[in-house]
C-alpha cells in the first residue's frame, strides 16, 4: 500500500520532451488510470515510477520516501507489461514465483504463496505447464500473478489488455477491477482506450503531448473536460465542437454560434479570445421542431435503442444521439436543442475550458 507523489517530473530524450514538468499524487489504494494517445508520455511516466527510466528532473516519492534515483529492485513495485514478458524458459509456477525466489524466501513459503495467488487467479491447473502454449488470457493471468505474489507496494500496468481480443478485454477489465477491490493495492494503469479507463478508474489522468491535461474521476473528466482535447478524446462518439464567437464577459449566459444565440451555463471568467468553441456531447443535443440551430439530416445510424443522427448545420457537422422514437430521414431539415447545463465552452486560443456555473472548469 502506498501513495505515489510526482513532483515536477520532467523527462527529455535528447530534443524530444516525453513528459513535461508534471506533478500529481496517486492516492493510497486507488485505481489510477493514465489515459492518452500513443506517444503522449503516459508510459514514460509509468516507467519512471517503476525505475526503468530516470527523470531528467523532478522527484518521485513512494510513501513519502524519495525513490527518484533508486533502482527498480529497491522500490518494491510490481510491473505488468503489455506483452506480459513471461520468461519463456520457465513454467507457470516458476514464472509466478520468480520474484519470491529472487528475494530468497524459504521454499515452503514460496510454494504456499504461489499456490495462493494461482488460486486467486484461477490458474492452479496450469501451474506446471510451460508458458508457451497458454492462451492470451491465461498468459495475462500469469503476468498478474507474478505481480501480485510479491505483495508489492503498488502495481504498475502498461496497457495490460492491449494484446487481448476485444471481447476478452471486457472480461479481463472486470476481473482486474474485482481483483483491485480485493487486494486494495495502489494501481497505476496506462491505456489509450478511454472505455477501459472510464470503466475501471477511480481517477483518470489525461495526457497529451507530454502534458497532464486533467486529473479527475471518470465523471468529472466526462462531464467537465478541462480542455478541448480531453473533451474530444473521452467519450464515443466524441463531443461536437461548434465554432462560436468569443469575447464574452464573466457572467455571460449565451454564446453566438453562426448568428444564433445558444444558452450556456453562466460563465465564471471572461473569455477574451475572439474565437471560441461550444462543446456539446451527442446525447446532450435534442432533435426538436424549434431549436437554437437548424440543419439538414445527413445520415442516420441505428444503434439498438438509440440512433446516431448526423446533422449538417451552417456551423459544422454535428452528431446527435437520439431515441429511436424520433423519426428522421435523410435530407430532412430539423431543429437542434441543446441541454444548457451540460455544454462546455472552450477558448480557441488556449483550448482550455471556460469555467462556468456548471463547473466546466475542472474545479
Amino acid at each position, binding site marked *: 500500500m502506498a501513495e505515489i507523489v510526482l513532483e515536477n517530473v520532467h523527462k527529455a530524450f535528447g530534443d524530444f520532451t516525453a513528459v513535461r514538468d508534471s506533478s500529481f499524487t496517486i492516492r493510497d489504494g486507488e485505481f489510477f488510470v493514465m489515459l492518452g494517445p500513443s506517444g503522449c508520455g503516459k508510459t514514460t511516466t509509468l516507467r519512471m515510477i517503476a525505475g526503468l527510466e530516470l527523470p531528467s528532473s523532478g522527484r518521485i516519492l513512494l510513501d513519502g520516501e524519495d525513490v527518484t534515483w533508486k533502482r527498480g529492485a529497491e522500490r518494491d513495485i510490481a*510491473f505488468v507489461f503489455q506483452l506480459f514478458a513471461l520468461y519463456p524458459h520457465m513454467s507457470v509456477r516458476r514464472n509466478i514465483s520468480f520474484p519470491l525466489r529472487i528475494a530468497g524466501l524459504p521454499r515452503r513459503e514460496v510454494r504456499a504463496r504461489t499456490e495462493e495467488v494461482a488460486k486467486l487467479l484461477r490458474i492452479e491447473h496450469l501451474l506446471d505447464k510451460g508458458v508457451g502454449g497458454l*492462451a492470451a488470457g491465461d498468459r495475462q493471468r500469469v503476468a498478474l500473478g507474478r505481480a501480485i505474489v510479491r505483495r508489492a507496494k503498488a502495481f504498475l500496468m502498461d496497457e495490460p489488455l492491449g494484446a487481448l481480443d476485444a471481447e476478452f478485454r471486457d472480461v479481463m477489465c472486470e476481473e482486474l477491477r474485482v481483483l483491485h477491490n480485493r487486494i486494495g493495492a495502489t494501481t497505476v494503469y496506462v491505456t489509450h482506450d478511454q472505455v477501459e479507463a472510464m470503466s475501471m478508474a477511480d481517477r483518470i489522468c489525461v495526457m497529451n503531448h507530454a502534458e497532464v491535461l486533467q486529473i479527475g474521476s471518470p465523471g468529472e473528466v466526462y462531464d467537465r473536460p478541462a480542455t478541448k482535447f480531453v473533451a474530444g478524446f473521452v467519450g464515443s462518439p466524441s463531443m461536437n465542437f461548434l465554432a462560436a464567437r468569443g469575447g464574452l464577459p464573466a457572467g455571460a449566459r449565451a454564446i453566438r454560434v453562426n448568428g444564433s444565440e445558444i444558452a450556456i451555463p453562466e460563465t465564471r471568467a471572461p473569455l477574451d479570445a475572439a474565437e471560441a468553441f461550444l462543446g456539446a456531447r451527442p446525447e446532450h443535443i435534442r432533435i426538436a421542431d424549434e431549436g437554437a440551430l437548424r440543419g439538414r439530416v445527413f445520415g442516420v445510424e441505428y444503434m439498438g435503442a438509440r440512433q446516431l443522427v448526423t446533422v449538417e448545420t451552417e456551423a459544422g457537422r454535428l452528431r446527435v444521439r437520439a431515441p429511436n422514437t424520433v423519426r428522421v430521414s435523410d435530407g430532412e431539415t430539423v431543429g437542434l436543442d441543446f441541454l444548457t447545463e451540460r455544454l462546455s465552452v472552450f477558448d480557441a486560443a488556449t483550448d482550455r475550458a471556460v469555467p462556468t456555473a456548471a463547473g466546466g472548469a475542472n474545479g
Partner: protein
Amino acid sequence: MTDAAAPAPASGTTSATPAKSAPRRLPLKPGEASGGARFFAGLLVIGYALIAMIPLVWIFATSFKSPPDSIAYPPEVIFEPTLEGYVNLFTSRTRQTAEYIESLGPPQTWYEELVRKRNMVISGPSRFADRYWNSVVIGFGSTFLAVFLGTLAAYAFSRFKVPLKDDLMFFILSTRMMPPIAVAIPIYLMYRELGLSDTAAGMILLYTAVNLSLSVWLLKGFVDEIPREYEEAAVVDGYTRLQAFRKVILPQMRAGIAATAIFCLIFAWNEYAFALLLTSGEAQTAPPFIPIIIGEGGLDWPAVAAGTTLFLLPVVIFTVLLRNQLLRGITFGAVRK
C-alpha cells in the same frame, strides 16, 4: 496444444481456446505440400545429399586403403580394408634392410607388424597428435573468446545507447570486407615483432579477431529479437541488470549462441592460409600439416585421408550435438515462440 475435444476446461480458461485450436485438426495446413510434391521434394533432397556425400565417402574409404590401392587406376571400389593409413599417420618410420628387421626379432604389436610388411620400422610417433591438439586448443579457444566477447558486445549494442553505434557496427563489419589473407604480410611482420609468431596465443587472438565481426553481428540480431520487457520485468522483480542478463537473457540466447559458435568453430578449425604462414613448429594446426604427410615416392594418400577423416570429426560431433539449437538459431526467430 489444448485438446479441442475435451469438455470445457476448468474455470478460468478462456472459452476462446478450443475454438482457436480446432482448425489445426484440418488434414492440410495452408502452405503444406500435397503427398506427390512431398515425395518429389524428398527425392531431390536425398539425391543432392548423395552427391554432396561422395567426396566424404571417398576420403573415408581411402583412409582404409593400402597405399597401392589408393593410387590404383581404375579406382578400387571394393578393397581389403587396412589400418595402415592410420598407423602411418601417427608414426614416423624408416626403411631398413630385410636383414636388420630380421635381427629385431618378432614384432611386439599389431601396428609394428603392419609397418614391417613394407620393410620399415617405427622410429617414433609422428607430430600429428600434437598438431591435432593445437587445432583443438586454437579452434575451441578462439571460438569461446569470439562468442564470449561477441555476446557482451552484441548485448551492449542492442540495449545501451552507445555513441556512434551505427558507425561502430559498420566498422566491425568492414573488417570482413577484404579477404583476411590480404593483411597476411603486415600481420606476419607484427607477429614477428611481438613474439606471437608460431604461438597458440597468437593464433587464438587472430582467429578471435576475424570471427568477432561475424559473432557480434549475428548475436546482435538474436538479442534484438528478445523483447526488452524480459529484462525490465526481472529488474523490477529484484534483479540487477547483470543478473537479469545472466538469468533471463542468456538462456533465451542459447540457440543464437550455439549457431554462432558453430560458424566460428568451422572457420577457426578449417583456416589454412594463416596457419600455413604463421605457424611452423610449435603451434602448427592440422590443416597445414595434413597435406604434407609424405610417404614413399610422394604423398601418403591413405595417411592424408586418415588425417582428414579424424580432422572432420569434431566439427561433425559439435554440429550434431547442437543441431536442435542450430536449426532454431538459423531460422532467426522467424518462427514465433
